[in-house]
């Protein structure tokens, strides 16, 4: 179902109806922008031959507020709360990506304890993101509610941890350039340990419900296959890329933060279909738990902010930096150009959700409309980040 990467992409959509063709009529419909499966406002203009998808063009921009322009008129720090609103499922990962880019730009060091806190919060974020993504996926397959509510039950426990640490469940605004905003509240680590210890039980329960489920397998296996070459060429990242068998995880490649200290594996898929993408997320959650156990065991006492980091009057030297992390959705990068003033001259977000959608048409072509919804669910996007 995929075409070679050198072939040009389609020129234009055909007219709404074509007549006099033996194959029958093509029908152009708009899936969205208020389709329940899109988790936001997103439209797919699809051309159908009966029930099969012939063409699919994603349409974005319903949630566009030009975050980049707003950030260029504000100081570096005042964009930090705004990064929460990009991918609102994973605000702590977004905070980290932005902080990392600014730290590269200004040459700031991060104290060890703060690095550990960053790893712990980012991996907790990954747990709750992957759990809810799978929940949404099953919802879209028609498993009405149950798996999603199981996932949300666990997610809520993690969001409670975030709330007690940062004051907010989802809009955490926790990291700062050169460290973190506040010290861990007393008893937080113990509570986190409890949540981490209880999590495998949820994963086992979840897997018993889904992994061998006949209906789930019938809907997922061999559907929406993404081949390796196209995945690399189209810049697809995160579980989607690894389900196609490419071993590329920025935690291992860049070793940003302190990830080289932890022992964890990168699960890889074989077929690149919907089922592999589901399985990769399941396995990644187990690896995240490994990282969490090690981090919670090793976290040292100490300061959480770089003493040299300035909060007021922060003006990095002229220059530029690109910082990226492995967010649960993919490679989240921030590209900053400083001209020596308090505001960034150029502020760019590399949105993994948007770029992973590049291959949506290639994955969906030839499948039924109902499969399109499932394939779209495994891309795992958040429209706040796609449209910015």
């Amino acid at each position: 179902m995929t075409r070679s990467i050198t072939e040009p992409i389609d020129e234009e959509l055909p007219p709404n109806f074509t007549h006099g063709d033996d194959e029958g009529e093509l029908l152009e419909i708009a899936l969205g922008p208020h389709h329940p499966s899109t988790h936001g406002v997103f439209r797919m203009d699809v051309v159908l031959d009966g029930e099969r998808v012939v063409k699919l063009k994603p349409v974005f921009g319903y949630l566009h507020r030009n975050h980049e322009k707003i950030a260029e008129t504000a100081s570096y720090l005042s964009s930090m709360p705004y990064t929460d609103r990009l991918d609102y499922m994973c605000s702590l990962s977004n905070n980290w990506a932005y902080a990392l880019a600014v730290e590269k730009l200004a040459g700031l060091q991060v104290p060890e304890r703060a690095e550990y806190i960053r790893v712990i919060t980012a991996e907790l974020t990954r747990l709750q993101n992957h759990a809810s993504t799978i929940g949404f996926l099953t919802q879209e397959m028609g498993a009405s509610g149950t798996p999603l509510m199981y996932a949300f039950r666990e997610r809520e426990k993690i969001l409670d941890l975030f709330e007690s640490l940062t004051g907010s469940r989802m809009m955490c605004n926790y990291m700062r350039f050169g460290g973190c905003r506040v010290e861990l509240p007393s008893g937080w680590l113990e509570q986190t340990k409890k949540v981490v210890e209880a999590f495998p039980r949820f994963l086992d329960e979840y897997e018993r419900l889904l992994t061998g489920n006949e209906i789930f397998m019938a809907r997922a296996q061999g559907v929406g296959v993404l081949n390796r070459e196209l995945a690399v060429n189209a810049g697809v990242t995160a579980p989607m890329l690894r389900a196609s068998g490419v071993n590329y995880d920025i935690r291992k490649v860049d070793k940003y933060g302190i990830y080289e200290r932890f022992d964890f594996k990168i699960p890889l898929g074989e077929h690149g279909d919907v089922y592999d993408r589901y399985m990769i997320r399941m396995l990644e959650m187990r690896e995240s738990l490994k990282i969490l156990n090690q981090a919670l065991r090793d976290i040292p006492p100490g300061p959480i902010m770089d003493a040299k980091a300035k909060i007021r009057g922060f003006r990095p030297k002229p220059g530029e930096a690109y910082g990226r992390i492995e967010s649960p959705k993919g490679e989240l990068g921030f590209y900053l150009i400083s001209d020596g003033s308090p505001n960034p001259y150029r502020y760019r977000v590399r949105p993994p959700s948007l770029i992973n959608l590049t291959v949506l048409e290639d994955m969906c072509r030839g499948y039924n409309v109902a499969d399109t919804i499932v394939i779209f669910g495994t891309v795992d996007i958040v429209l706040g980040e796609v449209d910015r």
Partner: protein
Amino acid sequence: MLEKIKTDIEAAVPSCRLEIIPNGSPSGQHSLLVESTCAVEVAKFLRDSPELRLDYCSNVTGVDWLDTETSEKVKVKTLVDGVEQEIEEVRKLKSPGYLETVYHLYSMEKKHGPVILRLRTENRADKVHLPSLTPVWRSAEFQEREIFDLYGIIFDGHPDLRRILMWDEFEDHPMRKDYVEPDDYEYEPTAHEDILAKAKQHNA
């Protein structure tokens, strides 16, 4: 590292002008300015060269550099009333602005990077064409559309160059530094006037 890549490219694409743009920040991510006429060849070389294998184009973005005016004081000797005197003169130097695209390339096979490419347009007004690198890396497809939308760079060879975030009828490019916000965000001719006129007729 970047010097070596530069010499490699010069060997493979001989007629191409390249320049290393130094980066003053502690990140040390220097970039390579590529002449736009040979950008596609350079991109293909970087992607396919067995040593580099930059198969993954991660981030593509635009930057707007305005016309800059720098003034410098120059001492000029002139004859004033038959006596030679030194007079300070202010000279203004105008350098034209340009639009720029920045490509961050990584290698998934060799796991190295980033190699940063920059392409520049001739000016900001009418000569804003650049070659599209989407035929080389599909990941640039939506990102180049976004640059076209928000900066107004026209990518020659892009398979589907349309606005992506703003609506199709929108005319300006909002990420440009000299963009002025409209007073009114209403973008479609609304039916209000017609409806009011009809209502008047009804009431008459």
